[in-house]
């Protein structure tokens, strides 16, 4: 599963994308992975699936074909 990183997240992970293998392909597992590997806190990240932000508390299944992006806080304007 390819995951892309933006803003502060890309800074912390020190990469703009990576291939991640999760046992259970869902949002919760992804959050746990990011927290364990990079110590990224839940409220420091936003998750977009196919260019739409998704809830971090709901159980959302992910597909390999999904475009999964981890975003830091927006700062436009």
């Amino acid at each position, binding site marked *: 599963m390819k995951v*892309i990183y*933006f*803003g*502060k997240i890309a*800074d912390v992970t020190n990469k703009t994308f990576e291939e991640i293998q999760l046992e259970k392909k869902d949002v919760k597992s992804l959050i746990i992975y990011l927290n364990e590997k990079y110590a990224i806190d839940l409220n420091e990240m936003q998750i*977009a699936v196919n*260019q*739409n932000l998704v809830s971090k508390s709901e159980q959302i299944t992910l597909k390999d074909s999904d*475009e999964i*992006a981890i*975003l*830091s*806080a*927006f*700062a*436009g*304007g």
Partner: protein
Amino acid sequence: MKKKKSVFKEGQITSDFIANAIAKHQVKTQIGAHNIFLGQVRKDVIEDKTVKAIDFSCYQEMADQKLHDIREETFEKFDLTCMHIYHSLGEVQVGEVCFFVFVSAPHRPQVYEATEYIVNRVKEEVPIFGKEIFEDASYQWKTNV
């Protein structure tokens, strides 16, 4: 008028660029009122460090999609003749303009509110990221609060 076009500009949005955008609207003689918002990079001091520039980046595909939605929904909500949104990418120095929203309508009542609506939605919904670079070359990630 509603065509999708490039919002993102490399570097600052110059006053010449803004002047040119205004001049282009002189042929649209049904317009009576324009409202423009400009975001300028502020020389903030954060814990004794002074901001020198902001380095903007974005998640382009999602940004384009969100900007398209904002454009469509603004036209539905307000009686506008035109609207334009421009945002900088890359480094923009203190005092330079990084955000330009331009709304035009036959009459003035709705233009202020339409501008405010667009500015707020862009800030809240469009995945743009900004690194505040301090004068000592250290940085922190900016957050819209």
